[in-house]
């Protein structure tokens, strides 16, 4: 994500613009229109696929936030998704919590469990943290499928995820989709607001020069930990949404391969754009499923598209679309 100087520097804030925010408003409008049109043009089955894709885009948004703000290579999202998903499921199953409250608590648990990881980001370089994140996801996926937690997670087979209810009636079909779409839209809007805030600007300064940020009195460690918690919160929320969208949740869904796919989705869409996470997820997750590609063929397609994007459009498809060369005037 490239930072450009603003024409007029504000009084005390760092004088840089945030591309993520520049496209935020139009991005949210495009998302709202896409989410509203989907139930009209898609069949029930296709809508379920779309809802699952939309749910994944929340986790991808977290990856994009980490990458675009401080260059963090987040490979821990599947671990957070499985934590958020199963915490929400437990709350719904055991204490009959409403879905939204269970999802919020699942998100909070995901954020809290990410604090030690955030502490590690302060002490490790980018690649070391990526390796550790990879190991963490591997560990959590293995623990969740193991005998130790089989009663909670259902082991390899997983568990059904009950549909959310309103006034005692299950929200299914378009209503279930609407709930997921609304939560997703709100989470994207929160990301836009968050990165327009002072914290967002500080993170960008940290990305450019950590020493300058510290010299200016910024507690960079605290901001890194906060960012890791926020990114993981998006992952945990996504886990609950995926469970709700597909009506099922199983630990093998959230393995290390998913961490690479989520990163691929963020990069293909454009990590520096709010809409990038949404676009990347639709291209790599929803469209191949919609076209009836088998899982393995989908993965091959993901690899080819990722390679193509990283070579031809290294800042993502949205960045490439923004810079289409204009026709030369005669």
């Amino acid at each position, binding site marked *: 994500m490239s930072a450009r100087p603003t024409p007029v520097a504000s009084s005390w804030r760092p004088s840089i613009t945030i591309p993520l925010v520049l496209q935020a408003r139009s991005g949210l409008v495009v998302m709202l229109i896409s989410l509203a049109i989907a139930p009209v043009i898609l069949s029930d089955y296709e809508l379920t696929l779309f809802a699952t894709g939309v749910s994944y885009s929340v986790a991808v948004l977290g990856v994009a936030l980490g990458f675009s703000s401080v*260059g963090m290579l987040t490979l821990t999202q599947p671990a957070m998704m499985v934590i958020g998903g199963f915490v929400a499921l437990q709350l719904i199953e055991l204490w009959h919590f409403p879905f939204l409250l269970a999802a919020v608590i699942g998100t909070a648990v995901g954020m809290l469990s990410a604090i030690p990881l955030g502490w*590690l980001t302060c*002490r*490790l*370089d*980018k*690649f*070391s943290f990526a*390796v*550790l994140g*990879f*190991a*963490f996801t*591997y*560990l959590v996926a*293995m*623990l969740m499928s*193991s*005998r*130790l937690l089989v009663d909670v997670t259902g082991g390899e087979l997983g568990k059904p995820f009950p549909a959310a209810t309103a006034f005692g009636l299950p929200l299914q079909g378009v209503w279930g989709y609407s709930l997921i779409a609304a939560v997703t839209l709100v989470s994207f809007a929160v990301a836009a607001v968050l990165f327009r805030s002072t914290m967002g600007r500080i993170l960008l300064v940290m990305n450019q020069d950590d020493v300058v940020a510290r010299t200016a009195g910024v507690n960079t460690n605290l901001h890194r930990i906060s960012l890791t918690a926020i990114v993981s919160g998006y992952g945990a929320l996504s886990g609950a949404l995926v469970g709700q969208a597909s009506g099922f949740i199983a630990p093998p869904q959230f393995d*290390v*391969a998913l961490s*690479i*796919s989520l*990163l*691929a989705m963020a*990069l293909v869409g454009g990590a520096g754009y709010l809409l990038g996470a949404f676009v990347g997820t639709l291209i790599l997750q929803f469209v191949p499923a919609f076209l009836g590609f088998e899982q*393995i*063929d989908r*993965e*091959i397609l*993901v*690899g*080819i598209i*990722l*390679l193509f994007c*990283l*070579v*031809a459009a*290294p800042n993502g498809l949205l960045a490439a679309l923004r810079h289409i060369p204009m026709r030369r005037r005669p």
Partner: protein
Amino acid sequence: MLAATVVGGISLGFLYGLVALTLILLVRTTGVLNFAAADVGMFCAFIAFIAITQFQMPVVAAIALTAVFAALLGALTYGSIILIRPADPLMLSLRTLSILIIVRALAYKFWGANSPYRFPRIVPDGGILVLGVNMNYTQLTVIALALVMALAVSWLTGATRIGLMLRAVSSDRETAADLGVAVIRVDLVAWCMATLVAGVVGILVAQLTFLSPDMMSPVLLAGFAAAQLADMQSMRTALIAGVALGIIQSLSSVYLNQPEWSQVLSFAVLAGGLLLRGQLRRRVVAT
């Protein structure tokens, strides 16, 4: 029991060390962290497997064919991710993620349905008593081959003309190019060498365990860990770190008696090692 477990850990650890060695080789020459380092080895192992089982080739011929295939795959990877359009090391490293996804998905597509497979025995079953420890021939072969590979890479990089060029490119890429070093050729040699070593590791892992598309995930992870513990610089330290990780994993899986706790311990060792290395690096910078 203890000695046998340690020997098992050493043979596994050497494989981790070799993966770390390929990672360091590429980071030092091209600046790229190759996420596909281990999985290209898995793909090569499948090629050897097909050559032996379907085409009935002798083992030696199959391995020679696989070596040629590995070198070509290395050249193809280099061409498709680096040469096609240069970029900064982070972006180039991310491009290797796509190679990882493609290679693994292709392996699942072609051979995933009936996996895992038992790789044909390259060495006979049975073993010998070494210093009172019963070592099977497979473990001995793995240790011997790993040592030979490590020494060969060390000799190539330390005592040959191409090694001198590799070190020059590693030290200062632009100056080396200005002085007439064919940087692209050196890169190509490094990629071919790294993929060749990965291919051998793939075959050895298949010998020790089973052949399947996901067999390299733990090896990749441990290889990354060993390379990181060696600060992506010292191949010797990476080999030692790999062996240490192998021994810890082997001991913990036997004595903790639960694979889950063994993995937790491995993660704790990795996190602790990385933190310690970071601490040491900061101290060096401070002094």
